[in-house]
């Protein structure tokens, strides 16, 4: 029987990945280089390669495809490179400088501790709107939603017309003070823009993107949306057109940073920020459910950065006020912590202080590590791994890019000389220090969420994570690590497994216990907005799964704790119960005695997620299994914990479920190398996942 497919696509910085999941449970993956000038070309290339490997014409493959789910970096790249639309901003008169003032904190947002310390040197990033394209209109809403100063419509119309007709802006951002509590003034502006300009201009309104207090981040959100909006829209039209031309007649959905899909019509462009990492987290959560893991840490280590995400009992965490690049943005973006620790992280010596310093500088892609032979002379983590024998210089990227071990050795030798150490000691030191830093980051991330690292299973993906995973996991008391065969296209895989998700959130300000109906009415309002959106996505009310969350805090506190509520509506009992749940959770997070229950509890925000389940293929376990030792591809010496070890080298493709690997072993595939150091063992499960167990 011919398979019908769901295809997940993820455009990354270097490669565009596709993951194909068939109704039979078959999984295929492929990659093609990303084509920044027109990313649709890279997508079509990757699909073509997938068709070739399945030995069918592309037209036939796409004809058999029910769904294409797409994560793109168009929005991400537009923001990172600051190439986007000419944006105009309408705001409350008297607050025109808000995107420039940036709550002052914009000077340091998105920077590392090391960068922040150079206070005399730091400047703010240029905002996404020119100062000359900001117009203030007379109006003022108070914090309870009363229009103290009514919107002056003549002035408003003049401002809009001026920006559109005289300044020729390509997008209009609208963010008024306290529109989160009462959006009526923003709606008046929306009505005017719609009626006068219709689809001639892209526009975005703060109350639609985030009903959340805090004008700086809310303003950034509409500005970012406008900055990337026209570009994202244009790209999507173009790609959809190409897909249809090539035979695709199924459903096309977009991945959002909240970990859910949306149709192009219902998806705001800013919501597609960070959809790649969200795909990775989603794949992790799908695998966690399949494998029965309750608490999972994801560790993604690539060339320049190390990213950590956390999944617990069916949920991942959202960043409370995420900073994208250098901007605070109010979008539900999965909380992923990142540090500059990757294969390209540079090590140097300070002989005066007898220190071996690793990072945060990175050799990046150009010149890259010394062993790339592209002119890099500073030793990197990758160079250390080559010198230690962990990486095979002739099998890097499956042998496509042979490495130069002598250049790695020379770079390490320079540092070794300065410190009076041996070359291998330095290489082993770099490996250990980077492991230590990664362990510190993971710990901070886990502790902040109120858990202990030892309770977690670690999922390692990205080119370098599986080399270091046992090293840093051991430090944290983690005992199990999983490496996936889909690891090279993990995000695309996750995107192929996603559901449709829309999220609405609203700031509020109630002392508890309050009248349950007050809370219920907000819930109802958010839910009906969401059900309306979901019906546009072709989900009936009964198909939609709603999840409700409250953010609570002790009175006078600034930061709250978000709880999922296990009921749909509040009565008196639920009002009491939620306060108890909060006090318990608070104690778990911050310890006994930290909370002051006498201060009273406040309700700070209400959030509802609407989930439209998308039918998806389930992975099937392989029937073939073996208890024989796997076939050895080769042997090589690797230097670990102060001595040389003879390691067995295996080819990932040749190993069968049930086969076990002893230390010291290396498992290689073109995009992933796994190290099983002393004290760890490996076993392949029926899904072809490699499970590493740390015994000591």
């Amino acid at each position, binding site marked *: 029987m011919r398979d019908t497919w769901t295809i997940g696509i993820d455009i990354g910085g270097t490669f565009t990945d596709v993951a194909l999941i068939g109704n039979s449970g078959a999984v295929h993956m492929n990659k093609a280089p990303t084509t920044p000038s027109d990313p649709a070309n890279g997508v079509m290339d990757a699909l073509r390669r997938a068709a070739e490997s399945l030995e069918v014409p592309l037209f036939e493959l796409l004809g058999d495809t029910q769904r294409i789910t797409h994560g793109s970096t168009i929005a991400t790249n537009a923001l990172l490179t600051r190439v986007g639309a000419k944006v105009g901003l309408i705001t409350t008169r008297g607050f025109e400088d808000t995107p420039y003032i940036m709550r002052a904190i914009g000077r340091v947002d998105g920077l590392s501790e090391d960068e922040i310390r150079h206070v005399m040197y730091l400047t703010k990033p240029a905002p996404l709107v020119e100062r000359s394209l900001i117009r203030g209109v007379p109006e003022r809403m*108070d914090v309870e939603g009363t229009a103290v100063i009514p919107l002056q419509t003549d002035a408003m119309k003049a401002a809009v017309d001026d920006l559109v007709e005289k300044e020729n802006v390509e997008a209009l951002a609208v963010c008024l003070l306290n529109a989160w509590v009462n959006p009526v003034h923003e709606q008046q502006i929306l009505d005017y823009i719609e009626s006068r300009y219709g689809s001639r201009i892209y526009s975005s309104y703060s109350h639609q993107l985030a009903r959340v207090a*805090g004008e700086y981040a809310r303003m950034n959100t509409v500005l970012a949306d406008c900055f990337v909006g026209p570009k994202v829209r244009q790209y999507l039209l173009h790609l959809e057109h190409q897909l249809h031309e090539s035979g695709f007649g199924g459903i096309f959905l977009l991945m959002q940073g909240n970990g859910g899909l949306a149709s192009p019509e219902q998806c705001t462009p800013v919501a597609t920020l960070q959809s790649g990492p969200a795909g990775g987290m989603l794949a992790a959560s799908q695998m966690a459910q399949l494998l029965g893991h309750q608490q999972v840490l994801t560790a993604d280590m690539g060339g320049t950065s190390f990213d950590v995400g956390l999944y617990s009992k069916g949920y991942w965490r959202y960043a409370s006020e995420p900073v994208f690049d250098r901007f605070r943005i109010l979008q539900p973006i999965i909380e992923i912590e990142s540090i500059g620790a990757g294969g390209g992280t540079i090590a140097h010596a300070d002989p005066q202080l007898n220190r071996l310093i690793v990072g945060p500088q990175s050799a990046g892609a150009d010149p890259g590590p010394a062993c790339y032979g592209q002119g890099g002379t500073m030793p990197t983590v990758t160079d250390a791994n080559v010198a230690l024998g962990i990486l095979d210089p002739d099998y890097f990227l499956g042998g496509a890019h042979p490495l130069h071990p002598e250049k790695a050795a020379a770079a390490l030798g320079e540092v070794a000389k300065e410190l009076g150490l041996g070359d291998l000691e330095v290489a082993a030191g770099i490996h250990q220090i980077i492991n230590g830093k990664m362990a510190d980051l993971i710990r901070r991330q886990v502790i902040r969420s109120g858990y202990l690292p030892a309770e977690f299973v670690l999922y390692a993906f990205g080119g370098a994570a599986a080399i270091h995973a046992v090293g840093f996991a051991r430090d944290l008391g983690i005992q199990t690590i999983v490496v996936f065969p889909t690891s090279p296209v993990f995000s695309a895989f996750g995107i192929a497994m996603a559901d449709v998700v829309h999220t609405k959130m609203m700031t509020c300000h109630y002392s508890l216990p309050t009248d349950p109906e007050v809370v219920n009415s907000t819930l109802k309002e958010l839910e009906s907005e969401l059900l309306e959106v979901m019906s546009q996505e072709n989900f009936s009310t009964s198909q939609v799964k709603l999840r409700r969350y409250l953010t609570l805090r002790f009175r006078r506190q600034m930061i709250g704790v978000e709880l999922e509520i296990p009921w749909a509506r509040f009565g008196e009992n639920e009002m009491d119960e939620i306060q108890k749940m909060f006090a318990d959770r608070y104690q778990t997070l911050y310890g006994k005695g930290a909370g002051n229950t006498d201060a009273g509890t406040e309700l700070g925000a209400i959030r509802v997620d609407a989930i439209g389940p998308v039918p998806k293929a389930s992975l099937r376990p392989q029937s073939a299994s073996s208890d024989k030792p796997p076939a050895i591809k080769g042997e090589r010496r690797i230097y670990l914990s102060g001595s040389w070890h003879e390691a067995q080298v295996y080819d990932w493709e040749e190993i069968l479920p049930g086969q076990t690997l002893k230390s010291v072993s290396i498992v290689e595939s073109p995009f992933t190398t796994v190290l099983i150091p002393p004290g760890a063992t490996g076993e392949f499960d029926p899904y072809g996942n490699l499970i590493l167990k740390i015994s000591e």
Partner: protein
Amino acid sequence: MAAAVETLDPVKYEIFMHRLWAVGEEGRIALQRVSASPIVVQGGECMQSFYDPNGRMILACSGHLRFAAATSDAIKKIVEWFGSDPGFHDGDQIFNNDPYVAGSHTYDQMVIKPIYFDGRLIAWTASSSHTADTGGVMRGAATEIFHEGLRILGLKIVEAGQFRNDVCKTIVEQCRDPYYVELDLRSRIAGNNVSAQRFLELVDQFGIEFVEAASKKLMDDSEHMARAKLRSLPDGTWRSRMFASGMRRPEPYQIICEMTKKGDTLRFDFNGTSPQLHDDQNSTLPSTLAHVTLALTNTLFWDVPWSDGKMVPVSVSVPEGCILNAKFPAACGGAPRVGQILVSAVSDCVAKMLYAGGRYDDINAGWQGLWYEGGPGYFYGGHTRQGIPVAQGLYDIHGGGFGAAPLRDGVDSGGHSNIPSGGISDVEWIELQYPFLYLTRNHAPNGAGYGTQRGGDGTHRVYMAYGTDDLSVDFRPYAGIPNGGFGLFGGYPAGSGGLRAVWRTDPDDIKSRMIRGEYPTSPAQIIKEKWGEALARSESGPHASVPEWGLISDFTQGGGGFGDPLERSLERLQADLDAGIFNAWAAERFFGAVLGENGKLDEAASKKSRAELRAARLKGLSNPPSLHANNEAKVLAQPHAELDIVESNEGPVWRCRQCGTVLGSARENYKKLAWSVIEPLDTVSEFPLPSADPFIGEFVYYFCPSCGIQLQVDVYCPQLGGERQWWDIQIELP
């Protein structure tokens, strides 16, 4: 016995160091998430740090720099006083908030926890944060520390692991908002619990000997790096003089700072600083030392790890009884403000030293350029519409402008010198918590120091008392002198715009005009459109009531300028005008620009006007010194952006970079060789003071006597006297 430092395994040390920092961060995260203070949570005014058994700081994590230096003092004192009676034990935590021991004022509160291993004291951890309520008299009214409420020298809030409810209740019930104070107190305990437990895990992992040796290495390395940095800079003496004014009387005071750098040492002498005041604008010695540390951490030692080691090469001398070393029981609630002026004084000297050393990336003009002090402050009393007391400050000052740099403008609304990673609250969040309605918060017109590179602009606000009939604000007498700003090499110390005032309004009038869509977004508009009457002086001492619908206008500090403003590019000046950073008045008055009828700069007319203004500077120079250019001479030093020190037959001389003219011997104060002009501040200010009092200071301009380039703009206060031609740069010459 600890292992010898030089034998420490560098790999293990690197892992340890990063982990120790991460442990402190964990503690700080715990503290911030429990705290109720906006200034702690959003403003970042807190710190988690580690100390050796003798109280020397091993490492401070990010946060408020002032606290890190202070806690060291507290531990030493507490050990001295209570070390044997009642003694300290495993599981104890001690509360302290005495500014005569540590910190700046009673709001700087810390909880200190000894860490024991095998029954032996091995380290201390401390968490500190700012809690803006200690009971006492209303802020600004104190004349003795006894008026400033809660002052605890050392009380066990946790004893042998047991939280002392009796102690907690006793402390928090001294305050107006006990819930808030208790949450903050508990947040510090939470921070310490996390830090101490994790520190012990480090001991488990690395071994006690290694931890002790590595801690020592951390401090030694800091000292080593600090000395190396000092050695890389030229020797010399730099002097600064900063002004500010008190709370109760419009009396100015000055801070005098002489900084001498020799080899790998740095010496500060504050001799000549004004005597302590009778209000709360005083700094205790611990506060002064903490602020010197803070200033050096921002400017000179930013890349040296935060441990006590970096201050070993630095010595400080402060005469007792002066405003920087106030004698007990002087009130000191305003110490952070005095501290800011002090930070400016230190930063001025350091910036000029760094310039002489060619470290252009590390140089900013002043960050604290307030055109004047007086009128409404930012501490409120009263109740919100929900009946909740308003006891905290509004910290928009955490969004002041930073000083201009040699090659770029200062950062607009960049932050605050004390808290490099702090910020200000959203207006929407402020309105959720305070009885205000903001009518504007934008960059302040004419709030940035004028210069070739302008200072970063501060913000200005107009806001209205809204939904309360019980609101007062601290109110100080107007004193017309720039507070704590400095420009560099011809830049102005501060912008001269801004109007800080409480405006009494007619509620019916304001309501009806607002319904029509009218509202003021600048003090100029309040005056022009007659929205209210400015209060000249407070009718009720150090605070003023603000009736509902009354207005407050104010501005935050801006950055100083760098270089002669007549040299600023017209293109960038046009952008300033478009963005409202400067208005036409300032563009003409200070930048010599001419605006056309369309409000845009007229390039040709501006150039002409600039040339005329520059020539006019030397008007009255009847007998120019015998000048000669010498372009071939060897440059000995470049301690000034417009003046080099070059070799000549008469020894080293000052030479103008623009015209090549030799001014005279470089062993002499260049100001004595320059042409100077004095201008009273009344004629510089955009607005008169609401009190109608005259300004109490003047600008002293120094120009090259040949080409008229502006070399320096000094503030001088005739009332305080002293040398007018202040000798700021004295390079050690061969």
